[in-house]
């Protein structure tokens, strides 16, 4: 068969259980293609080999049909069932060849020897940075890589996460909206003329649009067609000014004349509908009575003074008044919602308006989805919380009430046993009679009355003994491990030893990680690595031993406690090494040096 191309009759399946589409499989060095017998079938496809990640096949001799399973790098499986094993064999070899050919360029072979490949300069820089910033890492690197215990690549192979994690950390952080309210940026009033100047930056425009959807809507509707950008904002500022000046009558009058201006002064319809939607979402089980105690409702705006003067509600012109609370609530809602516009888009009013509408659309669809879920959830909640008593079944389940019998029953029986044991151990004789007992007690009292207190109350030597017993307990518990979480055992050691200990721990962890990851030893390379690691570990082991002997006797006990787990971990590794070596020797029999 020509090596350039293979064609076989197959059934294409998307899963093992799929009955399959009969057709032909065409294989070339670059790609594979499936052509169904029925030209109308949808399962026709072409696929390049470099997207194939994995291939599996059924073994000859098993009861299963001869099948080849190719997995693409997106995780999709393509299963082909052949007519016989010979066909499968041919295709299998072909796919293997094609895969190895295409695999050469895009991805490195995943063998352990390829560690010698050169890292990119970017990665090298990153490594340098990491070493500079992390002195512990630097110490480890110096100790192992410079001494040749580990190669540079091995050292970094276990820290891939560190390298990649650093890259992702550099992602941009978006600045949120300012929480200062717009009304705080007051118009500048020129003292000489009656001109009032408002300063509008794109940022302020964004805030206006976000907080007042009606203005945003109006802008989109009128600006390019009916009036210019400047006219629009002049009008808006006029409305704001009227609002500021608290001249509700003037506002009402002007609104009657100018419909665009009225738009700015009237309550926002879009906002209102949104508020209604939000109110529908309020948890129906919320207890409104809970804050009835904080009753501010008799004070307009809670009595807060705005712009230096109190607001007085005038019911007649109410539509043209906005209360501080409304503004405050709306503003905080917008700030909390956050911005979807990047700072780059804050160029001029037009772009801001457009960007805002885009982000809103995305938001809306998401919201609608949420609403569906939320309303379902709400219903569930209501049905759970609402208890309609007359619809409930009776709660009298057939249960037996707890009945504690006379507790004395239990205690008395207990008492008899305990009495027996205590008497047996303490005196073992018959109990004294009541009269005798009380008599002796009275005797001792009158004895004190006559004799007075002992003099001295306590003998000095006894007091000394008691004191030493009490303080001995204290000193022994003070350094007790784990008793006091704030007090570390490590702090009891000189700084040098403490640092050495910590460093040894780090080193041992590093070595062990490499050591255990090298098992099972399958290649000469790993064999050499394990041997290197083993030597390094025995070196640390002897260093620990030295350290233990160097400290003073009062610290040695604590130090031994700390060092023991380290030595145990090392020992376990050594033992495993020896056992593994033994096993290998036994297996290879006459060849003493296994696989070298």
């Amino acid at each position: 068969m020509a090596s350039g191309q293979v064609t076989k009759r197959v059934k294409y399946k998307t899963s093992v259980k799929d009955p399959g589409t009969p057709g032909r499989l065409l294989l070339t060095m670059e790609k594979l293609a499936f052509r169904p017998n029925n030209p109308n079938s949808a399962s026709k496809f072409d696929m390049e080999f470099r997207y194939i990640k994995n291939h599996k096949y059924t073994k000859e001799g098993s009861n299963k049909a001869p099948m080849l399973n190719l997995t693409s790098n997106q995780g999709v499986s393509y299963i082909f069932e052949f007519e016989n094993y010979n066909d499968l064999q041919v295709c299998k070899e072909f796919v293997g060849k094609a895969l190895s050919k295409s695999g050469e360029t895009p991805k490195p072979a995943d063998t352990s020897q390829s560690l010698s490949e050169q890292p990119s300069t970017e990665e090298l820089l990153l490594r340098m940075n990491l070493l500079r910033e992390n002195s512990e890492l630097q110490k480890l690197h110096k100790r192992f890589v410079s001494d040749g215990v580990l190669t540079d690549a091995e050292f970094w192979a276990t820290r891939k996460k560190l390298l990649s994690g650093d890259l992702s950390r550099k992602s941009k952080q978006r600045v949120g909206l300012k929480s200062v309210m717009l009304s705080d940026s007051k118009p500048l009033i020129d003292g000489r003329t009656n001109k009032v100047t408002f300063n509008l930056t794109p940022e302020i425009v964004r805030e206006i649009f976000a907080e007042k959807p009606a203005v945003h809507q109006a802008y989109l509707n009128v600006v390019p067609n009916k009036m210019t950008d400047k006219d629009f904002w002049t009008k808006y500022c006029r409305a704001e000014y009227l609002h500021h000046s608290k001249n509700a009558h003037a506002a009402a009058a002007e609104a009657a004349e100018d419909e665009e201006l009225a738009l700015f002064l009237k309550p926002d319809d879009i906002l209102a509908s949104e508020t209604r939607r939000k109110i529908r979402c309020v948890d129906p089980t919320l207890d409104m009575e809970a804050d009835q105690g904080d009753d501010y409702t008799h004070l307009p705006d809670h009595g807060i003074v705005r712009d230096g003067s109190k607001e007085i509600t005038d019911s007649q012109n109410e539509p043209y008044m906005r209360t501080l609370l409304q503004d405050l609530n709306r503003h905080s809602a917008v700030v909390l919602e956050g911005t979807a516009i990047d700072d780059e888009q804050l160029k001029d009013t037009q772009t801001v308006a457009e960007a805002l509408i885009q982000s809103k659309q995305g938001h809306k669809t998401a919201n609608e989805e949420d609403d569906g879920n939320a309303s379902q959830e709400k219903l569930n909640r209501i049905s759970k919380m609402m208890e309609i008593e007359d619809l409930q079944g009776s709660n009298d389940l057939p249960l037996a009430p707890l009945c504690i019998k006379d507790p004395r029953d239990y205690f008395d029986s207990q008492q008899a046993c305990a009495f027996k044991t205590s008497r047996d151990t303490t005196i073992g004789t018959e109990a004294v009679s009541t009269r005798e007992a009380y008599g002796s007690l009275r005797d001792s009292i009158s004895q004190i009355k006559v004799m007075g207190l002992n003099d001295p109350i306590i003998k000095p030597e006894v007091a000394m003994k008691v004191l030493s017993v009490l303080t001995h307990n204290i000193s022994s518990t003070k350094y007790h491990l784990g008793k006091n979480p704030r007090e570390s055992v490590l702090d009891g050691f000189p700084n040098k030893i403490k640092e050495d200990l910590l460093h040894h721990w780090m080193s041992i962890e590093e070595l062990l990680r490499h050591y255990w990851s090298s098992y099972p030893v399958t290649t000469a390379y790993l064999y050499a690595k394990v041997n290197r690691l083993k030597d390094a570990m025995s070196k640390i082991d002897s260093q620990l031993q030295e350290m233990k002997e160097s400290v003073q006797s009062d610290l040695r006990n604590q130090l031994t406690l700390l060092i023991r787990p380290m030595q145990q971990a090392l020992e376990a590794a050594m033992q495993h090494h020896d056992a593994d070596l033994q096993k290998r020797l036994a297996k290879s029999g006459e060849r003493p040096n296994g696989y070298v």
Partner: protein
Amino acid sequence: MASVPSKLYSDDVSLVMVLLDTNPFFWTTSSLPFSQFLSQVLAFLNSILLLNQLNQVVVIATGYNSCDYIYDSSSATNQSSEDGRLPALYSNLLQKLEEFIIRDEKLAKEEPRGKIASSLLSGSLSMALCYIQRVFRSGPLNPQPRILCLQGSPDGPEQYVAVMNAIFSAQRSMVPIDSCYVGAHNSAFLQQASYITGGVYVKPQHLDGLFQYLVTVFAADLHSRNFIQLPRPAGVDFRASCFCHKTTIDMGYICSVCLSIFCKHHKKCSTCGSVFGQAQSDNTSASDRKRKAPET
């Protein structure tokens, strides 16, 4: 260590409620004579009063049949006894104590044969807590209260519920219960009382040096305790005792209705009468035991 909120109480003034074990059946068997015990305790009480002028000491006798207040330093008259041999504190206290013992004896109805010689710890604990509650309610500036149990009698299992209740109410009102146990074996009640309320439990090894123990461990006020390394308990025995034989067990059967503990399988709970189902397998392995559920 739990201490009372300091703004309510001046921080180094103490109210020490001393519960004195006056169980005659214990003292006749004790290696420490009652007279010696009393003389060391009296000296200790005096030293507490000397530590701070405002310190207050209340002594409650824990008898065999009853309990009573036998001394209160706030209401003590300062006149000396007629022969002037003993200070007022001692003579007053001893006088009251003697009267108490006579009263206690009269209450005794029968010989305590077959009964364990335990004193009424639950009663005196309750009296101490009541007194503390009265002090709490009496004025804006109160001494910091604590309870010191000087106990020698073994635990009275029949008082278990009452003692535990007292311990928990002490915990709630943040009153530490210190205990000095002079009996032969450790007292589980007092160990738990001190552990739960944040007090100190001491079982002196040298009974003739009792005074030194008392002064070293129990004399300091609660505020100073923050700066003192007091003896820590080597461990509190929390193992449960089975209700049927009162043996301490590691693993047992628990009634799922009333939480009574048994060391072996019963057909019926002896406390609440629930009928247990048959054990799943009668050759119960140890690990099987916990999974017992009664069928009511």
